[in-house]
C-alpha cells in the first residue's frame, strides 16, 4: 500500500472554521440562478405570484446558497493533486432564504480520508458549510464531499 498523503497539517485543519463571508441576497441573483438551472417555479422567479404564496415574496431555490463563495480557510494546507471533483452534498434546510437577507457563510472540514478508485488514489475532504441569516438563525447546512485526484496520462 502506498504511503498516505494525509499530512498533520490536513488533520490540523479539521474543525477550524473558514473566514466568515457575509453576502446580501439580491432578488436579481435569485432569478438569474433559477433561470440558469431552468426552473420556472414562480416562487423563485415571479414576485407578483410569490407575494400571493405563504412566503409573501420570492424565495431562493434549494441549491442557491452554492452561489455564496466561502472565504479562505484559516488553516492552509497543500493538496498534492491538481484536479478535483464534487462527490455530493447533503443539505438540511431550516429557514427560507429571501431577497434582502444577509447570509453569513462559514465552512469547516469535518473529515479527510483517502481511497483508491478509477481516478487512482483520491483524497476525500468532507466540509460542512453553515448559512446563518441576519437574525442569527441557521437557514441551511450543506455537507459536501470534495474529491481530489491527479489526472492520469490518457496515452
Amino acid at each position, binding site marked *: 500500500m502506498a504511503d498516505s498523503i494525509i499530512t498533520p497539517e490536513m488533520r490540523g485543519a479539521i474543525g477550524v472554521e473558514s473566514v466568515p463571508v457575509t453576502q446580501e441576497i439580491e432578488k436579481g*441573483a435569485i432569478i*438569474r*440562478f433559477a*433561470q*440558469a*438551472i*431552468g*426552473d420556472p*417555479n*414562480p*416562487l423563485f422567479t415571479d414576485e407578483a*405570484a410569490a407575494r400571493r*404564496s*405563504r*412566503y409573501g415574496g420570492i424565495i431562493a*431555490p*434549494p*441549491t442557491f446558497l*452554492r*452561489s455564496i*463563495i466561502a472565504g479562505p480557510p484559516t488553516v492552509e494546507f497543500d493538496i498534492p493533486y491538481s*484536479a*478535483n*471533483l*464534487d*462527490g*455530493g*452534498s*447533503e*443539505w*438540511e*434546510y431550516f429557514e427560507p432564504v429571501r431577497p434582502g437577507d444577509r447570509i453569513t457563510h462559514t465552512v469547516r472540514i469535518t473529515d479527510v480520508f483517502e481511497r483508491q478508485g478509477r*481516478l487512482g488514489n483520491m483524497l476525500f475532504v468532507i466540509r460542512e458549510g453553515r448559512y446563518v441569516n441576519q437574525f442569527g438563525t441557521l437557514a441551511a447546512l450543506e455537507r459536501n*464531499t470534495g474529491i481530489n485526484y491527479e*489526472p*492520469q496520462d*490518457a496515452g
Partner: protein
Amino acid sequence: MSDQIYFEDVRPGAELPTLRKDPTTQQLVMYAGASGDFYQIHYDQGFAQANGLPDVILHGALKNAFLGQLVTDWIGEMGTLKRLTVQYRGMDVPGAPVFCKGIVKKAAVQDGQGVVECDVWLENSEGRKTTPGSAVVSLPLRSR
C-alpha cells in the same frame, strides 16, 4: 401555482412525476455565472480532457439543482423541503437529456407534520442512475 399535493395523497411506492432536463453547454455557462463555479472542466473541452474527463461535464451542483426542482415541483407551495442528499456517482455531459425521478419510501405524521421520505435520482437515457439521492419533505395535511 400548480395543484397542491397533500400528505394523504401519498403512500410508499408512489412515484414522483419525472422531470426531464436537456442541459446544453450554454446552460453550463449560465450555471457557472450564476453559481460562481468557474472550474474549467464545465466549459473548456481541452481542459476537461487534460483532466482525464471524456468531455466537459455537468456541474454536480447543477444536477443537485435539477433534483431540487423535481422535489419542489412535486411538493408545491405548501410543501417544505427539509433535507436533500445527492451523490455524484457518474458523469453527465451536455447535449444528452437527463431524467429526474423519485419514489416515496416512507410517510408518517411526526409532530403534527406530514413527513415524507423519498429516494430521488437522476438517470441518463440508457437508464443508468448517475446521481442517486434522497429527500425528506413535509406536506400539508388535509385534516387541518
